[in-house]
């Protein structure tokens, strides 16, 4: 087994020799530099411009309010570039978006940190709960043929039990009889297919669609179940509950559309949505 890296090492302040390491370093440090620049602007309100050329000759730049604007201050050019005015107006009109974005980013970073912690915990649990007699918990690649076949059979059985449980819940949520209780006409059911001819076809369609929806997603519906909202978590392993997403929900409602469809936002500044992660 190769020796693990010694961790962070002191680095000599001279041009790096290894070409690929240099590329990686450039990428990481450039990214870090931009982050620091962004933070300086956010925290202290300083305007900043950073221009960096890559080893390959490409240029990366970061600037607030814009690279050109700050550059021009340095160059003392009186004549403004064409889109200069737009940028100025842009910032005056909606200075509020940057703080909002920073808050949003902070929230995402917090969620990420929680997810990382959870990941470590789960891996630890797996490591600790591994019992020597449970050969099926070993990676599949290490199983011999007999075990693999036996395991397959057992898993198929388990799968059946799980799907049975799922359809049980389905039944519980949409017991077709209940919808027809109290129907005014008292007309009989048609061949046990539970179709009430007096029901509005739209209602019937809606119910049918709801059923299909539930089939697809098999998630706990947001409305109360006929037999109450049984939370099975109590009986099972409580530490598996992910509660960290609670705080994120406020952002789901507030800033659902990160494309910022407010006035004045130019089309070409729209990036792909940064929606909060869905479980």
């Amino acid at each position, binding site marked *: 087994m190769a020796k693990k890296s010694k961790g962070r090492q002191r680095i000599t*302040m*001279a041009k*790096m020799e290894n070409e690929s390491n240099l590329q990686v*370093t450039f990428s990481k*440090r450039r990214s870090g530099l931009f982050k620091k*620049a*962004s*933070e300086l*602007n956010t*925290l*202290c*309100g*300083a*305007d*900043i*411009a*950073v*221009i960096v050329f890559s*080893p390959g000759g490409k*240029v*990366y*730049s970061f600037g607030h*309010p*814009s690279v050109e604007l*700050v550059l021009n201050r*340095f160059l003392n050019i009186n004549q403004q570039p064409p889109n200069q005015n737009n*940028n100025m107006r842009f910032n005056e009109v909606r200075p509020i978006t*940057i*703080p909002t*974005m*920073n808050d949003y*980013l902070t929230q*995402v*970073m917090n969620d*990420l940190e929680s*997810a*990382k912690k*959870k*990941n470590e915990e789960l891996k630890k649990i797996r490591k600790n709960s591994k019992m020597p*007699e*449970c*050969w099926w918990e*070993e990676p599949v690649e290490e*199983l011999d*043929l*007999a075990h693999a*076949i036996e395991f397959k*059979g057992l*898993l198929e059985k388990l799968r059946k039990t799980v*799907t049975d*449980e*799922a359809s049980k819940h389905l039944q519980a949520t949409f017991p077709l009889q209940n919808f027809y209780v109290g129907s005014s006409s008292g007309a009989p059911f048609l061949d046990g297919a539970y179709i009430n001819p007096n029901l509005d076809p739209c209602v019937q369609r809606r119910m049918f669609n709801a059923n299909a929806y539930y089939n697809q997603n098999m998630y*706990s519906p947001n409305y109360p179940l006929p037999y109450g909202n049984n939370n*099975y*978590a109590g009986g*099972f392993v409580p530490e*598996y509950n992910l509660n960290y997403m609670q705080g994120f929900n406020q952002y789901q409602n507030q800033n659902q559309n990160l494309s910022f469809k407010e006035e004045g936002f130019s089309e070409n500044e729209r990036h792909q949505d940064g929606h909060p*992660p*869905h*479980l």
Partner: protein
Amino acid sequence: MTRQKVKMAYIENESSRKATYKKRKNGILKKANELATLCGVPVGVIIDSAYDLSPEVWPSREEMDKVVSQWQRLPVMDRTKKMLNQQSYLQQRISKETETCKKLTKENKELEMKEVMFDCLSGKTSPSRIEISDLRGCGNVIEQYLKNLKRRIEILSKNDGASSSSVHAAATTSAAMPIVEMGSSSTAFSDMIRQQQIQSNMNQTVRGLDLNQQQW
């Protein structure tokens, strides 16, 4: 002593802000220097603030002039391709981090469901006690596992064609799931049968699932 996490927002306290500005400005210039030195690339930084009369330029006005000329020599397209301001930068970071978070959450869910699956197999719990919302996730993990298993069985069956008959014999006699040495040679099977017969006498029953291998 661990540092306090700084809230990423404009610092209202004036003296605090000024102090932070001084420290961070120096930090940025240091980092810019390291980047330029380690990677041997041109770097230019301009910082304009209320705390300095004229904009601070790094490395120096002359060097910055060189960077600017190189910059201006590039076609506008190349200049602006990777140009960012606060909005675009933050948007980029948000997208990236959200993506990472999504992937990790997904992985966590899968790991969780794997635990559930193993617990069901070893009898620590049963499907009836699984949360409704987790049933689907559990089913997916089971499917994935089955896919891998089928592949593994295929590979092994190809290599081990001769001992396929003894495979059935071995599977039929297992009543529990005891430890056996791993290995796909045919001699291991007979060892396994013997061991299983011994261990089936021991009380290693698995609760919850019906292990009668009636499909064989």
